[in-house]
């Protein structure tokens, strides 16, 4: 009797172990299917929004690796996007090369700039490190501004329609697919990095750098490589973003832009790739939702008594701030926390425990 329950327990234990892998594979397959079918089902307006969300994921995912996994709080991602966009602009417009080359060049420059911006992390921590990234943001954006006026004129760099190997990919739908492929590549890279020994070493440095050093991990090499690697990925995303926007103009790369991506990883879940995706979708959809609400009810309500729905932009700002505050205070593990508790609830319900 007791033996049979033991066997049963072992079997459920095994199936519980096997399940996440099968589940994950099924989820990835499903997500791929949805991603492929989606632009054929919805209007081009919603395809654009989906593109925005996927691009936001591709940029926020490396940032989440830096902040969530490596523990280096950075406000510098807007600057890295600018580095990528302007490197891409120079390669595209001055040397007449195509997107893949521009992205590789941007990644290389991004890696070097990331290394330099990450240097203070060897001496500083906490609030001091954060302020050094704040200073770096303004210095890099200022350099980008000088670069822009020197090379492209005051208005910024206008990108040509996207072409790869002579094929025109500038339509809404093909742009979406290019960005989806890039996002999947980024997701795959980060997923594999974080499963490797290098990824575990990063987590160790975040948890306790002294203990990590005692285990034979070179803390400074880990920190610098994390800065360099994630900045390279963000810069490559910056090229694609500039193509998507049609131009690189220095006014776009503000501190608020950098904060948007941090908001995504907070809302989604620090250190979680799936969470980054949820957060990117959520934060991208907030202004859309508020606009729809305001467009639907704002006109009649606002005209009568000047309700807040008549101020869609201000309302967006307030809602966005409240979302950040609510998640940090009430749900620090982010949206992925809901998914995790739902999953453990489902497993418990299925196994009848």
């Amino acid at each position: 009797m007791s033996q049979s329950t033991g066997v049963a327990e072992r079997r459920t234990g095994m199936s519980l172990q096997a399940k996440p892998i099968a589940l994950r594979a099924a989820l990835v397959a499903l997500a791929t299917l949805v991603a492929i079918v989606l632009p054929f089902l919805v209007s081009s307006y919603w395809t654009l929004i989906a593109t925005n969300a996927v691009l936001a994921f591709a940029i926020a995912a490396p940032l989440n690796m830096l902040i969530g996994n490596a523990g280096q709080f950075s406000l510098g991602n807007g600057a890295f996007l600018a580095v990528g966009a302007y490197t891409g602009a120079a390669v595209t417009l001055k040397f007449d090369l195509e997107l893949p080359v521009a992205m590789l060049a941007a990644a290389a420059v991004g890696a070097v700039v990331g290394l330099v911006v990450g240097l203070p992390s060897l001496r500083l921590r906490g609030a001091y490190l954060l302020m050094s990234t704040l200073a770096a943001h303004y210095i890099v954006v200022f350099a980008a501004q000088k670069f822009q006026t020197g090379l492209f004129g005051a208005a910024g760099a206008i990108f040509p329609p996207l072409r790869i190997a002579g094929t025109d990919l500038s339509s809404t739908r093909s742009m979406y697919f290019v960005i989806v492929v890039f996002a999947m590549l980024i997701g795959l890279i980060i997923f594999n990095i974080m499963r490797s020994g290098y990824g575990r070493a990063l987590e160790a440095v975040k948890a306790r750098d002294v203990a990590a050093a005692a285990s034979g991990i070179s803390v400074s090499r880990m920190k610098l490589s994390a800065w360099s690697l994630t900045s390279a990925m963000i810069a490559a995303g910056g090229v694609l973003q500039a193509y998507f926007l049609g131009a690189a103009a220095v006014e776009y790369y503000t501190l608020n832009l950098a904060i948007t991506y941090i908001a995504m990883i907070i809302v989604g879940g620090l250190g979680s790739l799936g969470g980054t995706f949820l957060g990117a979708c959520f934060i991208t959809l907030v202004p859309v939702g508020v606009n729809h609400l305001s467009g639907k009810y704002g006109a009649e309500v606002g005209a009568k008594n000047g309700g807040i729905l008549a101020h869609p932009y201000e309302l967006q700002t307030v809602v966005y701030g409240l979302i950040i505050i609510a998640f940090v205070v009430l749900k620090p593990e982010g949206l992925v926390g809901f998914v995790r508790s739902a999953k453990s609830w489902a497993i418990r319900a299925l196994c009848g425990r």
Partner: protein
Amino acid sequence: VTDFLNAIIGGAGFGSLYGLVALGLVVVFKSTGILNFSAGALMAVGGLVSASFGSSGFWIAAALAVAIVAAVGALANVTVMRPLLGRGLFPGVMVTIGLTSVLEGTSGIVFGQQARFLVNPIASPTITLPFGTSMSSTLMVAVVLSVATTLLLSIAFKRTAVGLQLRAAAVRPEVAAMFGANPSRIFTYAWAVAGALAALAGALLASLTVADISIAAFALRAFAAMIVGGVDSLGGALLGGILVGIIELLAGTYLGDDYRLPSTMAVLMVFLLIRPAGLFGTAEVIRP
């Protein structure tokens, strides 16, 4: 030479405004360990509130703005900052960033988008100084007010019971609580002080330039001021602000206006790398 002296005088004037905001940053950072990114928004709201009371003169408008924004700061602490105590840097920074967004949106709904103006505190707009230099009378008032506020705050920190409790609660809230201090009430005072200082700077800035939510960006220099002066020194914050202001206007005069913000950020970076404790702060000791 006149350009140079004017840049130094004007820089000291604007710098004392950065110093006022930096004082608020220091008070909050010292007591709660939270790096307050909403200082700029609090300052801008202070400017807008004072401008909307502008018909009753500068001084009454400024006093009302100080009182109202101090209440906003205290309210922010009670509602969203208190749960974050002891959770480290990241949550505090993110919540103050969220608070900035809420303040900006709300003030847009309440005050509208058009810029407002505030009358000068002293009737004569400029004061002529030796060597052909001159100074805006509002900047002169700013220097006097910020020096007075710094002195008042230092005395309050050293001599009053609340000040002593605040310093004790900053080091070890549990032990301070055992000796009869109430850390959460003390931290509310700290936030109220931060709001009041930001509103004072905002009212002065509104009278110098315009009252608009975009003046929040001025407060970025306060971070530089805080580090240059030393994060735990009140007088240092003011002097750091003045130093940052002077460097900013010198860069603006000799390199061009677009060098103003980057120069202050470069100063911030240099101090972080060479002397993170600042000019007057005590070096932070990290025990691994």
